[in-house]
């Protein structure tokens, strides 16, 4: 499991989640995003195209990050969910909380 951060030319931070986002690694993701927020970034895309599964702690950290980013006038978008992850967001109704796009490129284009 690994998290990657890169910034596109318009300043959007794209976070890649490889493997899983679960109780054991959620704090690492949270800290990386909060560090970027602290450094002035305001637009974020989390790309799940290489993610196998997310548990409720992973969902919770996304909710927490979304709130913190919005409080700073920013926005968090999610992208690349596979069919199972999309279903997970729908059954928890978190699809109503997040802007979700099929690909990271679509998320970037929507900013």
């Amino acid at each position, binding site marked *: 499991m690994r998290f990657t951060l890169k910034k596109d030319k318009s300043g959007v931070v794209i976070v890649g989640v490889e493997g899983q986002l679960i109780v054991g690694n959620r704090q690492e993701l949270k800290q990386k995003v909060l560090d970027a927020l602290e450094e002035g970034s305001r637009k974020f895309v989390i790309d799940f195209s290489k993610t196998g599964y997310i548990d*409720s702690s992973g969902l919770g950290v996304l909710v927490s990050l979304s*709130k913190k980013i919005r409080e700073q006038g920013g926005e968090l978008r999610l992208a690349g969910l596979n069919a*199972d992850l999309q279903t997970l967001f729908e059954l928890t109704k978190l699809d109503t909380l997040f802007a979700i796009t099929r690909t990271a490129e679509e998320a970037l284009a929507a900013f």
Partner: protein
Amino acid sequence: MSLQFDFSKNTMKLDVPSDLGMVGDAVELVANNLPPGTLSPRRISFNLRTALAEALGNAIRYGTGEDPDRSVRVLVELLNDAVRIYIVDDGHGFDTDRLPDPTRPENIEREFGRGLFVIRHLVDDVAFNAKGNGICLTLRAGA
């Protein structure tokens, strides 16, 4: 701290140290040792992994309080038509009927409280022992 793993013909036994950082490794150990054909690859890669991570995370966080001197026991039974996973901690248990619905509008933005809700949607059957410190997850083949 390390995982203690024992695999016989139809059962796996696993002692997971009370460390949230061990959850991912424990899940992979179980998932990667399931005999081919037990469950569909998709159910193993998503339903089983997510539900087991949830149950282990709950047991470590709430059951054993992340105490490094304690551990959580996992027993996996490989049945003809199902995989049954027991996760038991040595905590005081909890009342599963008192959990709020995480999909209600007032709860959507809460960080916690989705674990059991998610588990119930990912497996075919969920049961608890009387004390509330043990959960049994059943995933049926062909479901």
